[in-house]
């Protein structure tokens, strides 16, 4: 492989990974923007989404298809069921664990979120013990699970090309980009989007406008959950391994992306995700894999030294 090819290949890998990170980061940033809560359970919600995706794959027999077609039809039910499930779950979590704490001290919902995260991890562990074929009869509940190929792995650039670009990478973009555009449109132009922005800026005033604040916050969790579900499907079909503890690391990457881009800022999440994805790929290639995490956080600290509110974050001027 020539050096240019390597660079191109790493860019493709970095951007694909970055897109997935960005999709999860959106969930963090939306929830943070509206209730100022670091939703620690978000990564684990994403993990449960991946487990559901695998369960659906097993139930529909998608794993039995030996060489999947370009785009397996199975993708469509996955993309409906999993986001729906994650959205509902996220909404219920908000309803049961966070909503009662709206007036509590600031860190109380954070601890509650950590608690929820533990519960979800435990559910993931049990889920891995399901007596289904895709879970190998549930004997090794805690082991990583293989997520079968449901999209063709044939190289689109031809079998002899050194650079690998498959439908898997394209699918990441094909799902993520429209979701992001849709989300921006929703927040900018729809009635719900306006209500969300109003609640984020001033909940009391929003209430006086006749906005049901709890419902709007619920809707935000719903959308954030759906994004996590979509991300779970994309992640699983791209990486093919899921395990019950994966939420923490993926969630941390996503949260870092959200902060790097400027938390509460939707385009910021995208920029942050892509930057982190690309840095990871480049560090793996040109520095050393074992130092990649250190490199990412060193860059985060340097960026925040010069831009304390993240790349796209606006400087917040406190009203005195």
């Amino acid at each position, binding site marked *: 492989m020539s050096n240019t090819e390597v660079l191109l290949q790493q860019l493709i890998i970095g951007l694909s990974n970055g897109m997935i990170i960005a999709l999860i980061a959106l969930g963090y940033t939306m929830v943070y923007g509206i209730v100022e809560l670091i939703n620690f359970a978000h990564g684990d919600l994403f993990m449960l989404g991946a487990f559901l995706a695998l369960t659906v794959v097993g139930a529909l027999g998608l794993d039995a298809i030996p060489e999947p077609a370009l785009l397996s039809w199975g993708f469509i039910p996955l993309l409906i069921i999993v986001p729906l499930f994650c959205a509902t779950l996220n909404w219920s979590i908000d309803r049961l664990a966070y909503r009662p704490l709206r007036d509590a001290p600031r860190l109380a919902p954070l601890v509650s979120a950590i608690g929820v995260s533990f519960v979800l991890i435990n559910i993931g562990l049990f889920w891995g013990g399901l007596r289904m074929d895709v879970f190998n009869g549930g004997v090794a509940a805690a082991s990583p699970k293989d997520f079968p190929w449901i999209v063709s792995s044939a190289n689109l650039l031809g079998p002899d090309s050194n650079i690998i670009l498959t439908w898997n990478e394209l699918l990441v973009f094909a799902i993520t980009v429209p979701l992001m555009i849709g989300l921006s449109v929703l927040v900018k132009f729809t009635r719900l989007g306006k209500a969300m922005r109003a609640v984020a800026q001033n909940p009391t005033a929003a209430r006086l406008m006749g906005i049901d604040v709890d419902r709007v916050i619920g809707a935000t969790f719903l959308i954030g959950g759906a994004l996590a579900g979509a991300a779970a499907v994309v992640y699983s079909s791209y990486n093919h391994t899921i395990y019950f503890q994966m939420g923490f690391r993926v969630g941390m990457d996503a949260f870092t992306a959200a902060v790097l881009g400027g938390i509460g800022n939707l385009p910021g999440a995208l920029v942050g995700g892509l930057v982190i994805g690309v840095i990871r790929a480049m560090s793996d290639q040109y520095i050393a894999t074992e130092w990649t995490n250190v490199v990412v956080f060193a860059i985060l600290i*340097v960026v925040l*030294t*010069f831009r*304390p509110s993240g790349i796209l974050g606006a400087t917040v*001027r406190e009203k*005195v």
Partner: protein
Amino acid sequence: MSLLHVDDVTMQFGGLTAVNKVDFRVERGQIFSVIGPNGAGKTTVFNAITGVYEPTEGIILIDGRPGMRPVTPRTILGIALVGVLTAAGFTIALNLESMWNAAISANYIYKQPFAWGKAIGDALGHLRSAPATLTLLPAIAGLLIGVAGATSVWRRSRRSPDVVARQGVARTFQNPRVFHQMTVLENVLVGMDTKLRTRFWHAACRLGFKHEHCSSVEKAMAMLRFVELEDEAGAAASCLSYGHQRRLEIARALASEPKLLLLDEPAAGMNPSESVDLMELIRKIRDRGIAVVLIEHHMNLVMGVSDRIAVLDYGNKIAEGTPDEIQACPKVRKAYLGTDLD
């Protein structure tokens, strides 16, 4: 030299000019009022004076000194030091393991005595023989990042309220900002912070701590007596009524023994009789030799107590003068007071 110089101060927020070329002077022992409609930029001027905001243009001098951290040789030295340390840090970080191997692992034989001198020599020798990409490059990068980072961080915190406060400026806020989780007495003690000398280790081990603590508590009680809050000294500040919180804020501000006191709408939410008491209090503060700058809407209070008044409208100063001059000024009547003052 006047106590406070505000010269051609302009404040812009994202293209919007909140304050436009405002200038005024406050003399020692004077009560100076700033009036004007809401949004005219009065509080913004306060924030610029106290260092909460940095003015886009213009100069603010307190007792002839700008209210920001001065560029001293120490500052430059400090930034240079951060740069050098970052450079050294980067270089050592990149070579840490190999230096350790050269110095410690290579020289130490299990449970044998260790030659420290040789180890240090070996470590430096190793660093000298390492390729430039591992020594010079990180050192230069570290120096650049260190100096740039330190400068950027220092510049951001250059104008900080604490610098202004240490020059003898204290203030209150439009909405009282007392420390809710503290007692009333502790609130005042926080105000005295700049005057206290207790160092960290003294505090931790209670060395020579008692004496200063007792005298500061005594002073704080005197402040509370001055604003007639001594009965509430042990209560949580959050339990105070709105009016009491305002007085607590004044006591806290006075505790720092300021030369200049800025009061942001102290009479908001007071009924006329309370306003009269407040007027009295402000005069008493002035009599202690403290200059007072006042933002207020209660015209009776302003006119009754002020030595001079400045009027702001849409960020511009439209008039300045004694209360009588201001009341007579047609421009002010038109823009602010309304033609019939009833």
